[in-house]
């Protein structure tokens, strides 16, 4: 079958790979109908997560049709339209019992890598390097989905493919940031990053009852989407001093909840960017954390900061003093999709959560390398490139 493969740093190509097959009794095979780029892929593409092999298939956010089921699969039948959580979880371990699915003990076939890096191994993910299990991704005609009764969800008839697609990863990630970040009715919430993840976090905060939600980025087209489709306020960090603006808009308190949806390749205006970039290139820090720094600094006393952006290793100049003295809670996680997808699909069916606007560029899988290029360069107003295998 055809699939989009990583061939080296910043090198992608569509090639032929073997068709996936059922390997465990809980597997299904899904014929991919739509599959989409994610900001996380850019970290792989750029070589910031050094656990890729030439030929790895990318993609972890997708919707499709069940074409084969393993012997133990109960919730799915051939022909079902399903959306699948990007993280793979068994549903039976202690972490799954706590609904912390991305921490699953049995979902990663290569736990030694992350155990060595981080002390403990989180679960596996589709198309997200050998550190996360080396599972072939969804930018392909077919994909094998393990633990399908736990991680695949039938899409209600009222929800289109293009809407359901984003329940897979960006909407569930954004919801998790607002939920585990502790957003309460009446809160003021600030979100760094107006990509699909940041937009979905902002929408979640609003649906959870936040009084004011503000999204920070520098791309006008993305900020415009935030105003039009999410209904949140915006701050362009190239035109405004974010710290002062947030103080001003919160009566000097600072936001109650700060959600970071930028990640390890954050951009900063001014000399700090050069500092972080040089340190990252020299491997003195693996990640550039400027949005996290800003969020910790801006957050109100006793507030909470949730890190949704992906980080892999170490950062420099982390404001530990602000964290400690302001009594902050800082938390992060890879997405617990299984926890949120059924609720998100319901909200999508009711029209409370719309995502189609994120699919700014739709193209055949053959054009995926170009789709990634414009997504990476944020060219032509690209927010997400969607591929049709």
């Amino acid at each position, binding site marked *: 079958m055809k699939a989009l493969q990583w061939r080296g740093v910043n090198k992608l190509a569509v090639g032929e790979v073997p068709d996936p097959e059922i*390997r465990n*009794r809980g597997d299904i095979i899904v014929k991919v109908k739509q599959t989409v780029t994610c900001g996380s892929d850019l970290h792989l593409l750029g070589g910031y997560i050094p656990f890729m092999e*030439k030929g790895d298939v990318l993609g972890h956010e997708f919707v499709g049709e069940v074409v084969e089921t393993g012997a133990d699969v109960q919730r799915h039948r051939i022909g079902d339209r399903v959306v699948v959580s990007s993280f793979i979880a*068994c549903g039976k371990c202690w972490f799954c019992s706590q609904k912390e699915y991305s921490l699953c*003990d049995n979902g990663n076939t290569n736990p030694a890598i992350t155990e060595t890096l981080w002390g403990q191994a989180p679960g596996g993910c589709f198309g997200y390097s050998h550190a996360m299990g080396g599972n072939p991704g969804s930018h392909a005609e077919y994909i094998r989905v393990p633990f399908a009764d736990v991680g695949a969800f039938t899409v209600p008839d009222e929800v289109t493919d293009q809407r359901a697609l984003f329940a897979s990863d960006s909407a569930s990630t954004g919801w998790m940031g607002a939920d585990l970040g502790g957003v309460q009715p009446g809160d003021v919430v600030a979100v760094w990053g107006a990509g699909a993840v940041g937009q979905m976090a902002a929408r979640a905060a609003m649906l959870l009852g936040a009084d004011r939600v503000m999204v920070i980025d520098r791309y006008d087209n993305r900020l415009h989407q935030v105003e039009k489709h999410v209904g949140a306020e915006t701050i362009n960090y190239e035109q405004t001093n974010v710290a002062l603006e947030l103080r001003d808009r919160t009566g000097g308190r600072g936001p109650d909840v700060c959600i970071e949806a930028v990640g390890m390749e954050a951009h900063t205006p001014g000399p700090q960017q050069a500092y972080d970039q040089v340190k990252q290139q020299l491997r003195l820090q693996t990640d550039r954390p400027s949005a996290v720094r800003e969020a910790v600094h801006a957050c109100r006393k006793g507030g909470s900061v949730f890190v949704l952006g992906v980080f892999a290793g170490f950062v420099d100049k982390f404001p530990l003093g602000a964290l400690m003295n302001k009594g902050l809670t800082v938390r992060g996680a890879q997405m617990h999709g299984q926890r949120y997808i059924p609720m998100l699909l319901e909200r999508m069916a009711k029209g409370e959560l719309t995502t189609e606007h994120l699919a700014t560029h739709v193209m055949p899988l053959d054009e995926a390398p170009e789709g990634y290029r414009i997504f990476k360069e944020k060219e032509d107003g690209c927010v997400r490139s969607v591929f049709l295998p």
Partner: protein
Amino acid sequence: MRRIPRTVLAGAAVAGGVAAAGFAVRRRASTTGGDPRWHSVTVFRPLDDVGANLPEKLRALEVQLHPAPGDRGTEVRARSAGGEVPDGEVQRVLRESRSLLEVGDVLQPGGPTTTPTPLNKPLRAITRRTRTGGLS
């Protein structure tokens, strides 16, 4: 039949006694230095259940079971008594056993869709043998 480690049988019967035995062994291992290392995982199943259903490969090792605090299941410690099984392999047996006990199956890797290159050789050496190794 393979020898069934004493502590497993004791563990199923009197959990408290086993916990005490485990503590004594831990101290001995860290003081003598020469003994094979213990490796542990926590299995989210009750101790009786784990004791009665120990997977085959785990039975070949020296095993201790303790109830985990806070209803987290059972702490399973294992080592190769004679040191003939390498640490990485003991870790793999523990992880696979946990999956068998919790899920009834062990997730198999997908693919392969990759090609060997000089650059990815070290990574392929790690990923070829799934679930082997880790912190030690």
